[in-house]
């Protein structure tokens, strides 16, 4: 996030409908940069949410408040493709005077895009970032990663602290909501709960996120481990993931 600039921006969070993002860009200016408010960008705590809340939603609110008048509008994912707290964040931002355009990614809008990054070889963090960039620019890459068989799996959302992804080998496949984003189906629960049988998988969720229900069930079902993290990762989390990858 370009916090030292005075340039106006359009914020968004989750995976809004492409039509919603396009409509806001038409309205406020195609030249305005789009900023993913989910991402930890060093914004100070706005003090608007209790401490025991999802760090991603706290990022959304903190980033929006920090951007202040630079924020032309926010395109907010508030449907099943995000969560109740995403809906609540939209309400809070509107209370603060932010122009909020709500988006609900219904099944009729689902796409069926190829899973190039989810099933390709390469550094995991880079592939997650490439997938999340398709929310704004859905053009298929000219040089997609080479497909590979999975030796390990990472299931979940983009972590608040992406350093955890550095522990995984390049042959790690992506599952969960990240895969849903690449497929263009962010509310597809069946796809979100799919993992390849026999692939040692880390089921990651942010602390205080409802996706922990899925992570724990899936970890039990598939013999993986459920790992949660609130803010920054700590030695315990790193050790668990490192040990699981090494020993499984």
């Amino acid at each position, binding site marked *: 996030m370009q916090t030292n600039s005075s340039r106006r921006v359009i914020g968004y969070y989750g995976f809004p409908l492409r039509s919603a993002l396009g409509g806001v860009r038409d309205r406020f200016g195609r030249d305005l940069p789009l900023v993913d408010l989910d991402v930890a960008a060093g914004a100070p705590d706005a003090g608007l949410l209790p401490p025991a809340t999802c760090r991603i939603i706290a990022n959304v609110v903190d980033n929006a408040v920090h951007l202040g008048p630079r924020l032309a509008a926010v395109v907010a994912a508030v449907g099943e493709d995000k969560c109740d707290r995403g809906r609540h964040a939209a309400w809070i931002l509107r209370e603060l005077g932010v122009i909020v355009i709500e988006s609900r990614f219904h099944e009729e809008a689902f796409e069926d895009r190829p899973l190039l990054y989810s099933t390709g070889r390469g550094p995991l963090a880079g592939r997650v970032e490439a997938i999340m960039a398709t929310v704004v620019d859905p053009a298929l890459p000219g040089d997609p990663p080479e497909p590979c068989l999975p030796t390990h799996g990472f299931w979940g959302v983009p972590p608040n602290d992406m350093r955890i992804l550095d522990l995984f080998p390049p042959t790690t496949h992506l599952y969960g909501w990240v895969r849903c984003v690449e497929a263009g189906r962010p509310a597809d629960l069946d796809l979100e709960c799919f993992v390849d049988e026999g692939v040692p998988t880390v089921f990651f969720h942010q602390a205080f996120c409802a996706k922990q229900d899925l992570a724990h069930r899936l970890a039990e079902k598939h013999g993986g*481990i459920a790992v949660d993290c609130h803010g920054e990762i700590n030695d315990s989390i790193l050790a*668990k993931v490192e*040990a699981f990858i090494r020993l*499984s």
Partner: protein
Amino acid sequence: MLIADCGSTWSKILETDTDAIEIIQTRELIRREGIRFEIATGHSAKSRCRIYRNELIALAEGSLALVADGDFSVVDVGGRDVKFVRFAGRRVNRLDWNLACGSSTGATIELLGHYYEVEFDRLAPSERWINVTCGVFGMEKVLELVSTGTPPEEAVAMFLHGMVRNVFDFSGRPGRLYLSGGFCENDCFLQTMGNYCTVTPLGRTVPLEGLRR
């Protein structure tokens, strides 16, 4: 070659050429300036070794070296953390590491034992327990029990029982549990745990066995 498991409160050092094991308090290790290990694990090891090994990996590999079962669970109750690994077919099936929570760690019980001058090898298990949701709150309950007439030994045994329940839950309530760490030498802990599952103590050097592999 010197290898070591340097925990927060106790350090275990193995000379692999002679198999000589030295167990010292970590505060003494800190005073040994210049001591270096070839391979080490534990909270206090990172700046004292050439190769640092993840504690969970050391525990897992050490228990695989010591236990012949295909499916088993091992828990290491340390000074200020608890580590757990479950194997299915000798492959890791689940693992967890509870860091810096005094509700199920050795340092808390050591503090209580020292304060009330309790000898753990003579301490009788208690059928009653304190809910040790938090180590500090649990200690406060011990103080309260003692101040209202419960003998200190009984109060500490109740705390230990609460801790055992936490460790048992943390380990997924297995029918049989292999135990690693200093509590292998605490009869009260072993007898109390024995009321919940079959417990087999592996001793204090399981991670060292993992480092040696």
